[in-house]
């Protein structure tokens, strides 16, 4: 074991054997925003074997206040988060095999990616994706760690199939629309506190120290000095459709998915085609220029100004429509050009 991990192996619950376990593990990170940046950096520095990181978005100036992997240069280049994260993470630790995907974490995409994965970390900003992660976790018996934050408030809970209740067990009281950074803003320390909780549980899972896991649902408010730890043993529901006696994994069904999503914190709608595509972005950019629109392009995306909206098109056929929260209007703009 190299000197690089000496301070971590000196920590008795990890030790040399724990470090070897960490090195042999594959983590799937869903999201490369604030939680994704911090969790990914932490695990890459800790020396995991493989990291797969998935994100659908690109970097904007308003991300820099808390998304620790990104720079002003990344904003200027409008880089996708996954691409910029991959570059930065490889510079931090070249021993880790890092695979970054610029894609939406749909149930199909998750099914494609879970083979050989030891742990899934939730760094998404919406409950639709979390419920899909939750079903995938139960179907393939892979632990996952829920984390979320808004304003000065944050929460985390580790879901271990066969041991703990799952997110769907809590859904009776946890609806699909939680408070988002759209309404509450967010401060950096709240992000870091969630990362600290997710990251420590992740290390425990990776070194297989199951007895050390926190089994409670933790929540805190750093501004108001509140900290709560909720015991979850009574939350498990034997009739749960995700983790109960007769699971159907409802959130993996096509009917439970939307093709348009309002993105957290912005006046933006994502439109996703029913089937993944392989667009020729250069051709798309030329076509839009020929139509008289103002177009900016890089190898990952094409950005087009359409009246008061801006459409950013990715190679997999997805588009972000900025300047609207109206799903129908967004779908209409998308279909006008890519339908």
């Amino acid at each position: 074991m190299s000197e690089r991990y000496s301070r971590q192996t000196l920590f008795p619950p990890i030790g040399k054997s724990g470090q070897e376990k960490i090195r042999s593990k594959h983590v799937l990170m869903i999201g490369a925003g604030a939680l994704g940046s911090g969790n990914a950096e932490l695990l890459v520095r800790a020396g995991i074997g493989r990291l797969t990181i998935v994100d659908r978005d690109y970097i904007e100036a308003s991300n820099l206040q808390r998304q620790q992997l990104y720079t002003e240069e990344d904003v200027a280049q409008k880089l996708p988060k996954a691409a910029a994260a991959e570059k930065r993470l490889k510079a931090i630790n070249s021993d880790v095999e890092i695979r970054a995907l610029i894609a939406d974490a749909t149930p199909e995409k998750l099914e494609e990616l879970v083979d050989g994965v030891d742990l899934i970390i939730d760094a998404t900003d919406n409950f639709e994706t979390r419920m899909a992660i939750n079903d995938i976790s139960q179907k393939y018996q892979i632990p996952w760690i829920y984390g979320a934050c808004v304003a000065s408030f944050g929460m985390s809970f580790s879901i271990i199939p066969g041991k703990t209740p799952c997110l769907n067990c809590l859904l009776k009281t946890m609806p699909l629309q939680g408070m988002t950074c759209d309404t509450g803003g967010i401060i950096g320390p709240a992000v870091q506190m969630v990362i600290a909780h997710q990251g420590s549980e992740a290390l425990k899972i990776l070194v297989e120290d199951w007895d050390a896991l926190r089994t409670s649902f933790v929540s805190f408010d750093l501004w108001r000095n509140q900290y709560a730890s909720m015991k979850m043993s009574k939350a498990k529901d034997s009739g749960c459709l995700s983790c109960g006696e007769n699971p159907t994994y409802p959130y993996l069904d096509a009917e439970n998915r939307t093709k348009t999503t309002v993105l957290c914190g912005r006046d933006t709608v994502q439109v996703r085609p029913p089937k993944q595509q392989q667009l020729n972005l250069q051709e798309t950019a030329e076509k839009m220029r020929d139509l008289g629109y103002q177009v900016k392009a890089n190898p990952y995306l094409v950005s087009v100004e359409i009246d008061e909206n801006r459409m950013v098109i990715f190679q997999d056929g997805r588009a972000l429509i900025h300047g609207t929260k109206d799903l129908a209007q967004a779908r209409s703009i998308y279909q006008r050009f890519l339908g």
Partner: protein
Amino acid sequence: MNKLLFFAHLRDEAGHESVEIDAAGKTVAELKRMVAEKYGVQKLDSSMTAINEEFASNEEVIKEGDTIAFIPPVSGG
């Protein structure tokens, strides 16, 4: 008496961090309705509830002396 704790934005809506109320014998669902009316809290339906730091369903009945915390789920990340 029972102590109610409001987390995150619920504290702003309620105007208090905690209140004392007599809720013994009520279910969690009944208490949520009562608190929503009395303190003008909007989103209690979507909040998780802990009784004495343990997750509680809407059907659970509150006992004298229980401390009840309302924790709203968030989705930012």
